[in-house]
């Protein structure tokens, strides 16, 4: 039930992100990483895969890029969480890494680069919100 609600939340955040301007934070990436920290590696990969698939439907030119990167990021986050038991600092690094990798893979797939300034603001907001978002998901879904 909790996992189903988590997927619904990811979908809701995806819809909100589509409505937001390009300046807004990447809510799907934040949600995928936040859930991945609390789940097993398999389930974290599933959430990443589905979240990436959602993002790919909104960017037809690089279909597959977000799916690939977020599935890998979900797995990596869950792995890190099982290894690093103290602190949540790595989610900040992971969010920045995911954004950069997603952009790089999409560029390799032939997609154009988005405008630099909105991209920088969006990335900054995403990184800034990473830890608070993870804490919120922990409180709401895992009672931590």
């Amino acid at each position, binding site marked *: 039930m909790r996992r189903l609600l988590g997927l619904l939340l990811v979908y809701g955040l995806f*819809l909100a992100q*589509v*409505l937001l301007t390009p300046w807004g934070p990447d809510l799907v990436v934040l949600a995928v990483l936040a859930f991945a920290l609390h789940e*097993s590696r398999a389930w974290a990969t599933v959430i990443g*895969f589905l979240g990436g698939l959602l993002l*790919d439907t909104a960017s037809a*030119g690089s279909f*597959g890029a977000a799916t690939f990167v977020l*599935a890998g990021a979900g797995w990596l986050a869950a792995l890190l969480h099982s290894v690093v038991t103290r602190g949540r600092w790595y989610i900040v690094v992971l969010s920045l890494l995911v954004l950069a990798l997603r952009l790089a893979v999409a560029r390799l797939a032939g997609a154009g680069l988005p405008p630099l300034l909105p991209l920088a603001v969006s990335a900054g907001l995403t990184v800034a919100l990473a830890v608070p978002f993870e804490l919120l998901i922990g409180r709401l879904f895992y009672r931590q």
Partner: protein
Amino acid sequence: MHPRRLGNWQDRFALVLAALGLVALLLPRPLRFQLAARAGAVLLAPLRSLEETRAGSRRLREENRRLELLAAELALENARLHSLDRAAGPPPLTGRDLVRAPVISRDLATLRRYLVVSRGNRAGVSPGAPALAAAGVVGTVIATTPNQALVQSLHAPESRVAVTNRRSRVPAIARALGVELLMLDYVPKDSDFHPGDTLVTAGLGGIFPSGLPVALVTMARDDPAALFKTVHCRPLAAIARLEALFVLRIPAGAAADPDDDWLDNLAPTGTLLPENR
């Protein structure tokens, strides 16, 4: 919960999913577009229905605006036909049309005595012009600027409107009573007024065309100690809730004589504006 050992089934499953993403990325470009379009059609359906709802709402608002204008025009046409029907009535007014004027401000004390609308001289709105809603008369324009006009509603203490009982044809003068009601002055004790009667403009003076609905009688009492009958009524136009009204544009030269102000609805030249009091 979080097996530390790498290479178990969870990692193999993750590898398969990541590989699926990579396969999608390596598909030919047209096929990728096709897949994204099909998936997007399903996944973005809620947003599309939201957009359709918004568009529908916009369309309904436009339709409502158009129908309001139509209703006001029909009320005017009805009044014009009514004045044609009565030989003794004033000649029908021609060359007039309606200007839709959104309400942008109200008097802060009652929210219904004075309204400011966002149409002024430039839209052909001039002082003395009647202000109407689809349901009935709202009041009179008493001052204008190039882009705004001040409307004195029926609830203003200075407002007077010559009315006629649509059923019994008894004339009277309506003025504000408190914040919500109107009362009729000089109603003879033997006159025929009953609760539910509709009062329409009498058409005296040539500004308000005759026959426009004004108010509904709510109480008619014959007090033995009073000289006249006590009649209370409620305006048909919901003035406190109006978001827009219609101002009757008066062609140059058709305005009433400003000296002839024995009925205030003819030319409210003596009216003191709220800020001058």
